[in-house]
């Protein structure tokens, strides 16, 4: 009897971390009751796809552009210290967790989880299908050690996914601004980073994978979109051309403004567009490099 109970207990303990790789987590089970004198303040709050606006007003749209499912908020307090909040977003899949992280990334890697950024009392990172923000209310540097300790507890609790969206592999390394890489599916994300049209002229949707990145010193953008099949890519490309490029301007390469070269192409089930390249040569070389990457795939 005793051995049976022991077996069941071992089984439960053994499951606790490993099962969370693909399962659902709760901050209640991750964060101990007390961490270096910091204790939980109030209940953990939960917000779903609709109620997220109650917590963060319009900022909820950033998460809803991805496969956001639910978030939890846990508050920690310690006497004479500013309040710390942990926000845990279930993004549905690792690639969407990476996507929402890539949406706001500007600074240097902070070395936490599968990608992170720290700035003045705010640490954001992703691991597996979760995206986290740990925030010191007053943004003071004194809280930096506890913020990173909490992050360590979280990232040790479950395994990383070790995956990133496959479409990132089409980005050429040469002159890439790595902090500018944005992964997304929807036109609202594209327009957030680079306004193209108030209509969905590239037929972006949950089936498409898109990556936008800056190249060189200027604001030259490479957009690559992967469609489920070449037929859908062809239709999207035709629609984009008909709206974005008037007849007579559908050239291999166009100059729209001073130092702003444009080119677009269709290759298999990919559309590749280069906006605002500083020179024709730059645009040609970048396009050639990305097409080579697509062919290699």
């Amino acid at each position, binding site marked *: 009897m005793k051995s049976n109970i022991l077996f069941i207990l071992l089984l439960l303990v053994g499951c606790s971390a490993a099962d969370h790789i693909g399962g659902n987590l709760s901050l209640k089970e991750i964060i101990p009751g007390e961490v270096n004198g910091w204790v939980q303040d109030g209940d953990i709050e939960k917000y779903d796809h609709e109620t997220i606006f109650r917590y963060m007003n319009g900022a909820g*749209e950033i998460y809803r552009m991805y496969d956001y499912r639910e978030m939890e908020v846990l508050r920690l307090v310690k006497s004479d210290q500013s309040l710390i909040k942990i926000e845990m977003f279930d993004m549905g899949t690792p690639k969407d967790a990476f996507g929402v992280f890539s949406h706001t990334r500007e600074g240097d890697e902070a070395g936490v989880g599968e990608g992170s950024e720290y700035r003045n009392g705010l640490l954001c990172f992703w691991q597996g299908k979760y995206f986290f923000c740990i925030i010191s209310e007053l943004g003071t540097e004194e809280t930096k050690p506890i913020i990173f300790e909490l992050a360590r507890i979280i990232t040790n609790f479950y395994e990383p996914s070790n995956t990133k969206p496959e479409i990132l592999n089409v980005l050429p390394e040469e002159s890439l601004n790595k902090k500018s890489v944005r992964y997304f599916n929807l036109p609202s994300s594209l*327009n957030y980073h680079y306004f193209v049209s108030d209509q969905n002229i590239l037929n972006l949707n949950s089936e498409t994978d898109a990556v936008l990145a800056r190249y060189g010193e200027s604001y030259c953008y490479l957009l690559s979109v992967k469609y489920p099949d070449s037929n859908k890519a062809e239709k999207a490309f035709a629609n984009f051309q008909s709206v974005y490029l008037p007849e007579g301007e559908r050239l291999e390469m166009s100059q729209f403004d001073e130092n702003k070269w444009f080119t677009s192409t269709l290759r298999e089930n990919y559309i590749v567009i280069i906006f605002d390249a500083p020179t024709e040569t730059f645009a040609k070389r970048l396009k050639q490099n990305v097409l080579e990457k697509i062919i290699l795939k």
Partner: protein
Amino acid sequence: MEKHSEKKVRFTRRDFIKGASCAALGLAMGVSAESKNVVMAPSGTKVVLIRDKSVIGVDGKCNSEIIQSMLDQGINELFNVKSPADAWNVMFKPSDIVGIKTNVWGPLPTPPELEQSIKRGVMSAGVKETNISIDDRGILSNDVFNNATALINTRPMRTHHWAGVGGLLKNYIMFVPEPWTYHDNSCADLAKLWELPAVKGKTKVQILVMLTPLFHGIGAHHFDKEFTWKYNGLLVGTDPVALDAVGLQILKAQRLIHFGEERPMKPSPHHIAFADTRHKLGVADMSKINLIKLGWDEDILI
């Protein structure tokens, strides 16, 4: 034929670049004429910029006497009167019920000192104190706002994660129970708010707070003191589109100084331009705005 008409309602980046009539849209997106000087054309769209070097103390607090003086000067200039009481009397009658729509966003709220100066102005027109309310997130359940015969709109200017910038146009989003219904295309059609029965035709004066504007932000957790600066200004006017357009120009100028390059705003604050070109609410074209500058002119940026 159908395709042709369909194409006409679409806006693309190319339209902004190509069309001279879309200059205001281009300015919103940073795709053209980024640093052209303002042309002082005679126009009904008058915006008063008033600055005072000492309005924000070393402790970061707003000086109530100075902000009162700035408001008085701005109101005098806007209404072309010698005494602010004359202007307040033009705007309000004693029987009015007045909602002062403020903004309480934690890191950068409308300063209480300014709110009180505005309230004193309204009271100087004979409006009862009980018929005046200063509110933001509770306006839909506020009796004064529900019965308001007149409104005043005031808030600080800042970059915004979903609308590009949060200014006077966006400040009225709390007049709807579900603000997210205005989120499409980076809040492109915020100007529709001004057609709501609770709002339409009621706003007598608008004050865009430019004391310590936020000129850059990163994602949803969008405040960092490093991206604010002491501009020490107020923009006073009656056209929310023109006021936001001027505020946007000042933010862009500060971004140029800070980043050393014309870094595009994310997302583009095109709701200001659309308020002009699509909704005809006001004027976003800087060449058609009559900007009057008063007070401290160092690093004025516009």
